[in-house]
């Protein structure tokens, strides 16, 4: 078997042009991307992140950048902490007792530490949205599912909500399939449609970062392909973090890849380099299927 079995997404190959925003950020003393990374602006900087539940330490000193308008994939064997890591970004762990964070995730350009106890998790979730492993639409109408994020934000203008709902459904490539039955129950949609509806729900509120937690693991190959296509389209507008246990998927959709093992970040680099010339032996073993 070849040690490089995957094709690499086009975005990782194109030499990224450095937008002026990054230079600006540096000028006011914000952390620059790590030297290893190409000069793409950083949307979030993870520093020495630790996560504990009870006595168990789930994440051990993770540090990495999340590049703006790029797709970053988190890969690794089951139980390596990739979902746990992802759920730190929207403070999902706060919903359950006994969870503690240490270290920081700085959201740029404002520099808010997402994990600071002074920062309200609601604020974090309003800026960073999430798509889950299993499609989880509300047992409400298609329209209400997408509109819910706007209602939570106190949007009362019917026209504004209508527009946003349409826009989000179009971005999620679902509009044409549902435009004539927006008042139908979301449960009547197919699994793939439900997942795109959940993406529309997450998009409707203009998030800065979107988190995907194995978004296609409950879907058939055709639905999976449409979701992957969607992710490729979405990164023009926002920053995406995706957990996947499917390495081909990571290779197809992502620009950067982080390989995790037992709560540690083993290697972070462009997807191209992770898959073509990983620096660490462990990464190579996992990528080539000798392990995991």
């Amino acid at each position, binding site marked *: 078997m070849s040690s490089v079995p995957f094709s690499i997404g086009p975005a990782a190959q194109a030499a990224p042009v450095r937008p002026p925003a990054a230079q600006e950020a540096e000028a006011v003393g914000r952390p620059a991307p790590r030297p290893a990374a190409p000069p793409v602006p950083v949307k979030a900087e993870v520093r020495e992140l630790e996560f504990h539940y009870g006595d168990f330490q789930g994440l051990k000193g993770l540090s990495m950048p999340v590049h703006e308008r790029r797709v970053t994939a988190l890969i690794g064997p089951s139980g390596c902490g990739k979902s746990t890591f992802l759920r730190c970004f929207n403070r999902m762990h706060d919903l359950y007792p006994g969870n503690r964070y240490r270290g920081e995730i700085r959201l740029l350009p404002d520099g808010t530490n997402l994990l600071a106890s002074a920062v309200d998790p*609601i604020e974090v979730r309003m800026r960073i949205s999430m798509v*889950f492993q299993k499609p*989880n639409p509300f047992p409400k109408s298609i329209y209400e599912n997408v509109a819910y994020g706007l209602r*939570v934000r106190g949007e009362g203008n019917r026209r504004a909500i209508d527009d946003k709902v349409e826009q989000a459904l179009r971005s999620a490539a679902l509009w044409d399939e549902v435009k004539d039955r927006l008042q139908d129950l979301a*449960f009547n949609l197919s699994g793939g449609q439900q997942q795109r509806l959940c993406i529309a*729900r*997450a998009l409707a509120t203009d998030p800065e970062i979107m988190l995907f937690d194995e978004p296609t693991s409950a879907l058939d190959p055709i639905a999976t392909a449409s979701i992957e296509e969607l992710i490729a389209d979405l990164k023009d507008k926002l920053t995406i973090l995706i957990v996947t246990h499917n390495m081909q998927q990571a290779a197809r959709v992502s620009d950067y890849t982080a390989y995790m093992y037992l709560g540690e970040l083993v290697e972070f680099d462009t997807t191209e380099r992770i898959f073509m010339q990983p620096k660490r032996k462990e990464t190579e073993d996992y990528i080539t299927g000798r392990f995991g």
Partner: protein
Amino acid sequence: MSTSRAGEDLAALRELIGRHKRRDVMFGIVGLACMMVGVVTLIVLFIDLLIDGAPRFSWDFFTSFPSRRAGEAGILSAWVGTLLVMAVTMVAAVPLGVAAGIYLEEYAPKNWVTDLIEINVTNLAGVPSIVYGLLALGLFVYALGFGQSVLSAGLTLALLILPVIIVATRESIRAIPGSIREAAHAVGATKWQVTYDHILPYSVGGIMTGVIIGLARAIGETAPIITIGALTFIAFLPAAPVQAEFPFVSGEWLFAPFTVLPIQMFNWVSRPDTAFHANAAATGIVIIVATLAMNALAIRIRYRIRQRIKW
């Protein structure tokens, strides 16, 4: 060795299977008999009541006050009393029970105090109803001065069915998958928004079922109502809640003396004159039909909601 079994061996195997299957049939028969004990008893009881009470059914029976003459006596004051008491019970128990259930399930910190409260709530459902009657006699009738009134009776029964509603609320909340809750939190909803926009609407079917089953229990309760001193002979109706004159609504009925169906029945059963026993049987039919109707409604609601929301 050959793969086919010898004739003898096969016969033994069939014999073994036959013996095991006989046990299947045996349990089927025993189980059926056990079930019949319950069902047949209920049916026989109901038919017996029907035979005794059916002749008494007439329009007059529902529109007449109790009387010294069995043939003229009716249950007007009793069913109106039951209706009013149930109204008070529902208004008092539903908000209290639902709010308590939501708090315990969604808000209460998970520690030993909550566990203790949880165990207590479940145990409250098993406290004999007459104990509630004694509590109510001291609290509502005397300490709060509500007297032997519709209000006291309604609140007493509300206490009685509170645990039922709390448990039903918690169970239907618990049936909502965590993924739905996480979805709502993930778009930035606060705890209250999640509760009000999602938890409550999705669990309303289960809560309503609990409320109706609670009320169906309350409608037949006799002991606590006797304890707080319901009268057995009421020949008038409480003031109507809606009045022709300003301010159009009146709370007077809350403090009126009253009787309810099971008390009326109890009163008639204890008369030596057997003519009254027919009245009692007829009243029993009314109570049973009301209870069955409420349970049927609860099942119907649950079925309807299940069709709409499947997890």
